[in-house]
């Protein structure tokens, strides 16, 4: 006969005692739990800021919403924004229109360049019938270098779907972050 109860389910011995670890800690250990959480958040933040400094772009990784057939919804794009790089027709740039938050990933189709390096360019999405003049600000017909967030250097397919899901269902994002945060704060590491 097998006594399944003795070794079966891997449950905490005293039911749902999530604060059990915390109750047994002294002040230093509690401070270390908080610090641990803060360090995980800080590491993620520092890696992001580090990428910003390295690439020169204010948002070095973006998720593509539409640019068929080159990119599909949910692809992750890596951008750089070095001032010396020239912008040429045919390249894919990510730009922000003044007054709008969402960066747009489209292709450059026309470029006007002055001798001193000032540039005016026009963009169009590969999947669109017309150029982007309808998207620009009222009265604006050309984009300038200051509107550019970065130029596409590489991409990862499908990985960005997680970000899209978390943006479409913000409650899911907060729930996930809350659970992960609680786990780090409440569990004692040895």
């Amino acid at each position, binding site marked *: *006969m*097998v*006594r399944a109860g003795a070794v*079966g389910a891997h449950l905490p*011995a005293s039911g749902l005692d999530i604060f059990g*670890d915390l109750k047994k800690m002294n002040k230093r250990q509690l401070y270390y739990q908080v*610090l641990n959480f803060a360090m995980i958040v*800080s590491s993620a*933040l520092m890696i992001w800021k580090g990428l910003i400094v390295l690439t020169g772009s204010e948002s070095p990784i973006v998720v593509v919403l539409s640019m068929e057939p080159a990119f599909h919804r949910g692809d992750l794009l890596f951008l750089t924004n070095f001032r010396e790089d020239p912008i040429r027709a045919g390249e894919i740039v990510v730009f922000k229109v003044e007054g709008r938050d969402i960066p747009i990933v489209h292709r450059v189709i026309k470029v006007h360049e002055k001798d001193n390096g000032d540039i005016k360019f026009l963009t169009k999405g590969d999947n669109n019938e017309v150029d982007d003049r309808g998207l620009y600000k009222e009265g604006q017909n050309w984009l300038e270098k200051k509107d550019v967030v970065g130029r596409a250097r590489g991409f990862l397919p499908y990985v960005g779907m997680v970000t899209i899901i978390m943006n479409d269902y913000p409650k899911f994002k907060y729930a996930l972050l809350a659970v992960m945060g609680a786990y780090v704060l409440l569990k*004692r590491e040895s």
Partner: protein
Amino acid sequence: MAAAAVQGGRSGGSGGCSGAGGASNCGTGSGRSGLLDKRQALTILPRLDSSSWAQAVLPPQPPKYLGWQWKIDDKPVKIDKWDGSAVKNSLDDSAKKVLLEKYKYVENFGLIDGRLTICTISCFFAIVALIWDYMHPFPESKPVLALCVISYFVMMGILTIYTSYKEKSIFLVAHRKDPTGMDPDDIWQLSSSLKRFDDKYTLKLTFISGRTKQQREAEFTKSIAKFFDHSGTLVMDAYEPEISRLHDSLAIERKIK
């Protein structure tokens, strides 16, 4: 699971053979009865084997009073026995308690404070970067950001070196004040290890003499099944003597020298 099968097998075996030696379902013939008797005995005798909880012997027990009294409000420590890190933490905490309460040593928080300081400084750099970038949006904040990011990762490197080489697995540094007040303190250090999914717990006690600066160590490696009972309660009556023995073995050498 294998553990359940062993336990079931053992109880089935002992139930079947408890009637009488020589019952037909316990032996197949006189020629082999000696081997079977030994096997019966082995299945009935509790045996501490390194492979499974099912063979641990200790039933739940209340704490007895030893030479040194437990504090009145001391509750027995109860944890999930399958959680390796909880087991190690509770064993470490109890070893700490024995050294601090029975032998009345004073804990020195230097190592821990060092680690906390390094972590706090790293978080400080991160916060500075965050606030600066918020107040001066990106291109202007580049030099400050670069400085903070590099400092943060340098601090992380320092922290890794500190925990690997200076702190190692030491979880207690305790001082024994010299009763005459003339010599510097003797230092006792406790460190332990318990590998993932393993049941062998190693506890190492290091003694550094204040006067001669000599270092001596003693350690033991035992299965955690010796110290915990079925319900996951740490049985101090089994654990405390081990620690005292380690301590006394180092203390006695000191007296001889």
